[in-house]
């Protein structure tokens, strides 16, 4: 039976038509795009490709780091001495505060215990070296050299010696991606130190942040320091985030436009510290019950006062 072969001779075989292939690949690309953007469920694909790509990328970065090393070597004794003296001076300046810090913390702990307030969470973390900035021109991210192997998880905040840098958004086996607070999609819950006013600072994408949805008469001045408020359960409270540089109050809009610059060296890097995830916040009270109960309690407490006031008259 194996006499006549109905398949065409092999020299005419060219695979599927180009237009069919194009349709297939475009469809797959768009599907990947939508799934990655909407459902964020392609981390496994990303991690497995990254496992192959990451070593190549690190090797490609070595010429740059070699230049850095050579530069540091040639920088010379003089400038290093000057820097050393400057650092010693800075340390001396901060010495009074630092030396009393331990005692203050102990005192704070004791007082909090006396007041039966929950103890403050301690900040712990691991230092990570910045490998390179992400090449993607549409976002502001950096890649650090600690990953799943060092128990880094998505969501952990990253700080440098002066303030908050960003937040870990993607984790690979040997590296992690930190989205900077100046990225357009990044928001940090903040508090104005001077007034205690709480808000959220959004990245603008141009190296600045903006405090959005603040009323036009909000008490914010240029020069105000913003620190993390800790209300999100991600950032510990009290880390410096940004300084207000410009406040535009326009009566045509109901919100003030408040621009800030980050305190940390967000766009120039050496090392960052990735803080351990915070302890889980206590569960939120069921909203409806607490509201109605609170309302009744208030009414209950208000009425006797009125009566008393009436009696007094």
């Amino acid at each position, binding site marked *: 039976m194996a006499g006549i072969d109905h398949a065409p001779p092999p020299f005419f075989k*060219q695979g599927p038509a*180009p237009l069919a*292939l*194009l349709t297939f*690949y*475009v469809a*797959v*690309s*768009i*599907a*990947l*795009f*939508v*799934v*990655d*953007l909407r459902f964020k469920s*392609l981390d496994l*694909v*990303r991690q497995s*490709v*990254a496992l*192959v*790509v990451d070593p*190549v*990328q690190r*090797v*490609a*970065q070595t*010429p*740059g780091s070699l230049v850095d090393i050579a530069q540091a070597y040639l920088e010379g004794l003089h400038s290093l001495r000057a820097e050393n003296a400057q650092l010693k001076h800075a340390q001396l300046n901060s010495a009074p505060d630092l030396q009393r810090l331990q005692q203050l913390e102990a005192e704070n702990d004791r007082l909090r215990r006396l007041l039966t307030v929950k103890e403050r969470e301690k900040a712990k973390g691991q230092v990570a070296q910045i490998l*390179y*900035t*992400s*090449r*993607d*021109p*549409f*976002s502001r*991210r950096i*890649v650090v050299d600690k990953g799943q192997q060092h128990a880094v998880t998505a969501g952990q905040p990253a700080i440098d010696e002066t303030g908050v840098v960003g937040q870990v958004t*993607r984790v690979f086996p040997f590296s992690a*991606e930190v989205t900077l607070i100046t990225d*357009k*999609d990044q928001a940090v819950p903040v508090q104005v130190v001077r007034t205690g006013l709480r808000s959220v600072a959004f990245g603008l*994408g*141009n190296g600045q942040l903006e405090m959005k949805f603040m009323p036009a008469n909000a008490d914010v001045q240029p020069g105000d320091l913003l620190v993390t408020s800790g209300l999100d359960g991600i950032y510990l409270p009290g880390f410096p985030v940004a300084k207000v540089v410009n406040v535009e109050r326009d009566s045509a809009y109901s919100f003030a436009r408040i621009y800030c610059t980050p305190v940390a060296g967000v766009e120039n890097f050496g090392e960052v510290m990735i803080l351990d995830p915070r302890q889980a916040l206590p569960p939120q009270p069921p909203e409806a019950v607490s509201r109605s109960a609170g309302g009744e309690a208030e009414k209950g407490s208000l009425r006797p006062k009125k009566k008393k006031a009436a009696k007094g008259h």
Partner: protein
Amino acid sequence: MQPTFSSSRILLPVRPWFIFLSLFVALVLNFLPTGQWPGMPDWVALVLCFWSVREFRRVGMGWAFLLGIVMDVADGAVLGQHSLAYVLLAYVASSLSRRILWFPLLQQALQIMPLLVLTQVIQAAIRLVSGAEFPGWGYFVGPLIATVLWIPATFVLLLPQFQPVERDDNRPI
């Protein structure tokens, strides 16, 4: 095959390992820290476009798709961004290849320019649609520089295929 169809010089057949090597080198060039500089060309797009024009039977949309995924992961971009642009680039380049190769190099570069610009515009468009920030006009300078690089790239990538000119006065052609 000739350097251009109007040329009388016959080239050696391309070696597959050289195609792999050139695409790999293009990837490494993209990964270099210089990728952050404004106006740096997308080396992978350039080399991919070159091989799609010259050897569309060997380097096609499958390669474009794979390279695109690798670039997406390496960039930390959204998956599918580079792959979509590269697949379209490979398709258009291979369908235009019979026309492009008739022209001398400078005019080839002019024909390539819209393809490379289109690759960048597609990427910018799908990212802007999904709510990213505008990266600035410097982002669109890269393809123009890549266009200029088409001429040296052609010489470098065809180098292994050139054979020494053999002068033989007794040969009829």
